[in-house]
């Protein structure tokens, strides 16, 4: 049986009933399978499949009865008992009595909610699966048995088998932690509310308010850091973009021999892991680093230049160093695209008497811009979140007394976020910043979507 015919039958079957009408029009087994998963499957000749649904449901209910319900209920309060010292009369000393741990309550609560969501998905799936078995049987079609279903996992239903591991991985180590952290933005889990000693609680949108519009130091830190993040992102992206494009054009121009040799020279800096080159350049830029030594030895300056200690100097330094690292990447990428530009365009332009500048302005650049806009915007988002370049180079320094604890003049939102979690344990603020970064990225991604043909029309190539 070919896949084509199968999907036609599937369409016919589903045309009939939807989630509600499966219940209202169904027989008693279909109705009951809303409560006892898999009953419709068992009745319609898929006993093993139905039983699996049923067992999973029982397992879920047992889990909810034993733990889950209480865990979800605790989410409302995030714990009520503070850890305290109680006098133990039998021993005659004060003892610490374990209170509630808000952090664990939140985490386990999120886990229970995720488990419930997974169960909900299975429940829906079992209802449709039962309906399909029923419809096939009533239409007089063959109902696939368990063995056949398993075999289909390598063929028609390959997406189930291939995506199982990635989905489990994402649910455990990406989605769950992410939801947990997003929720944290709505609590007061800061340095003064650290479990297990203290409880923290829901505070609604309080964090967003203080960060965005209060007159205190937090807000006075947030806006300048955001501003610098934008300046950094735009200058880092466009400097590397144009630098890389020009370099690629030079290397790819006809008169240059040993193209591979020149490309390799620049690729070396790209191939060295970022943390090494950045840490090393940071030491070179120090007050007694080699750059200052040589500048004085060569007679360019009399004293040391404050490459990383003065705000203006440091900001320019990070952009320049990022240029050093970023240009080879763009160069590599652009090289491929440059070769795709039809040569006739250049030849006819030359016949019309266009100089190299005109050719670049009228042919190369428009073509490149058209092809690389999605890349450019992805790169812009990447640079807003370019943790490595800033953290390994300056770690946000020079620090400023006007800023909220620890933040420095070259800190981006991401590095500030990292410092807030690592150094001062202000998780609520870190999460709030994370959500703001998400909003910024989302806006830019939406722009990409509306601009780029390849994302709108993904079938275009096939």
């Amino acid at each position, binding site marked *: 049986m070919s896949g084509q015919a199968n999907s036609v039958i599937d369409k016919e079957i589903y045309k009939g009933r939807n989630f509600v009408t499966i219940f209202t029009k169904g027989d008693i087994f279909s109705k009951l399978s809303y409560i006892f998963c898999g009953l419709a499957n068992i009745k319609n000749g898929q006993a093993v499949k139905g039983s699996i649904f049923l067992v999973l449901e029982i397992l879920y209910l047992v889990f909810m009865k034993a733990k889950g319900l209480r865990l979800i209920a605790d989410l409302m309060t995030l714990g009520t008992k503070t850890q305290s010292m109680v006098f133990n009369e039998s021993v005659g000393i004060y003892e610490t009595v374990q209170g509630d741990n808000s952090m664990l309550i939140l985490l386990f609560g999120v886990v229970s909610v995720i488990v419930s969501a997974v169960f909900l998905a299975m429940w829906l799936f079992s209802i449709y699966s039962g309906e399909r078995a029923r419809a096939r049987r009533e239409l007089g079609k063959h109902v696939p048995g368990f063995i056949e279903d398993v075999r289909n996992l390598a063929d028609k239903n*390959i997406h189930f088998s291939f995506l199982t591991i990635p989905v489990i991985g994402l649910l455990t180590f990406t989605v769950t932690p992410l939801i947990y952290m997003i929720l944290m933005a709505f609590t007061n889990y800061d340095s003064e509310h650290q479990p297990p000693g203290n409880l923290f609680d829901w505070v609604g949108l309080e964090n967003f308010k203080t960060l965005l519009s209060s007159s205190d130091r937090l807000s006075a830190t947030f806006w300048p850091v955001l501003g610098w993040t934008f300046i950094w992102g735009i200058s880092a992206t466009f400097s590397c973009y144009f630098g890389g494009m020009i370099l690629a054009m030079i290397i790819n121009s006809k008169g240059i021999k040993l193209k591979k040799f020149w490309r390799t020279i620049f690729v070396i800096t790209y191939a060295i892991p970022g943390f090494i080159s950045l840490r090393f350049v940071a030491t070179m830029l120090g007050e007694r680093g080699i750059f200052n030594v040589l500048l004085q030895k*060569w007679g360019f300056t009399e004293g040391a230049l404050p490459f990383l200690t003065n705000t203006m100097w440091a900001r320019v330094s990070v952009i320049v160093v990022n240029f050093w690292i970023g240009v080879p990447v763009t160069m590599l990428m652009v090289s491929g695209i440059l070769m795709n530009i039809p040569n006739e365009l250049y030849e006819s332009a030359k016949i019309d008497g266009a100089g190299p500048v005109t050719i670049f302005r009228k042919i190369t650049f428009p073509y490149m811009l058209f092809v690389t806009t999605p890349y450019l915007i992805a790169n812009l988002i990447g640079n807003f979140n370019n943790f*490595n370049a800033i953290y390994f180079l300056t770690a946000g320094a020079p620090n400023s007394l006007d800023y909220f604890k620890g933040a420095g003049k070259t800190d981006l939102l991401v590095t500030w976020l990292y410092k807030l979690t690592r150094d001062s344990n202000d998780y609520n603020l870190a999460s709030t910043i994370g959500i703001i970064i998400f909003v910024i990225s989302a806006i830019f991604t939406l722009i990409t979507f509306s601009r780029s043909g390849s994302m709108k029309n993904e079938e275009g190539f096939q």
Partner: protein
Amino acid sequence: MKKTVIGLNLDHYVRALVGALILFVCILLPYASADGKTVSMLQALAARGNSYVDIILFGAVISAALSAVLGVVMFFKTTVGGVKLWQAVQAFSTAFFTLLLFSSKKILETAGLYGNFLNKNLGFGYWIGLIAAYFTLITVMRVTRTDRGYIILVILSVIWLFPVLWIVITSLRAEQGYYVGYFIPRGLTLKNYANLFSNQSVLPFGRWWLNTFIVAMCGCVFNTMIVLMTAFILSRTRFSGRKAFMNVLMIIGMFPGFMSLIAVYNILKGIGLNQSLLALIVVGAAGAAMGYHVTKGFFDTIPRALDEAAIIDGASRAQIFSKITLPLSKSIIVYIVLGGFLGAWSDYIFPSMLFGDKQSSYTVAVGLFWMTDFRRIDTYYTQFAAGAVLVALPIVILFVWLQRFYVEGLSGAVKG
């Protein structure tokens, strides 16, 4: 002059000649002036002390003179070989004039002409000479129809390789410590490398290297498999919920990744995996599916007709994956493997959070970062450099070797 020589573009000849003559005159113009004293290059050369950098001044004067002579001779008897020779001499002259920018201080101070010389005291003769040198080189290259891009490439290569050179030199330096007031080390040694692996060392660098290698190898295998499978499903099959799944992945990807690391850490603690290398591998593989984009873009370009023909011949989807898609995807597989391998070597945030102060589980990134803390940098600077070379070298070799695939993968991702 209306002369023609095959292989030369003589329109620019006169300009090149004028440039060369100006350059020659500059030898006699003020080279440096400070403290009310002005000297030309020839005077500086006559007063030279005993320093190896004098070669640069010597070379600048000789090559400038030679270039002017060759320019005049070629004017009367133009040959391709002669102009090529002139171009080579002019290239040397330009290089020497540029190097003077970095060595004038030493030359003039050892000559005893000035006490404390700064480059702002260089005379107008030098600056005009520098400009004339570049101008002449460019115009001579126009005459010989050589691409002027070489000049930019040479200058950029020097700038780009300078930090790399400094890492290598530092790793071989015998004198310890962060600060040295010179570029070329007094003594060379391999002890920095040996110390990293010796038993007396407090730094278990060999262990770190091995840890990272294990994580990188496992990461390569698992991540590549997961990425390939996810991309295959999203590119080659259609099922309900596919678009939604892709959208969810995109939304997750827009949150800064390490925002949730603290929660990941707690989950790992819950399953008893904290502070172990296995945790790094598991977490890396768990998030690998997020990087499916490039691979999916690549798979999208494989013609659908191939799949359809295989289905008619009775192949299952799993067989299409292993027998058709994978064999056609060599370059993208190399791209993912290389990316995964590189990632493991440079990943810093998560391992540093995961291992805390448990030094024996550190990866090289965490370990090397630990060495560059300002309290330790004086003790470990040369060893840090040696470690950096040991980490970077295999990757650079791998990268240069497999460059082609990387370019194909990258440019495959952005077409259209």
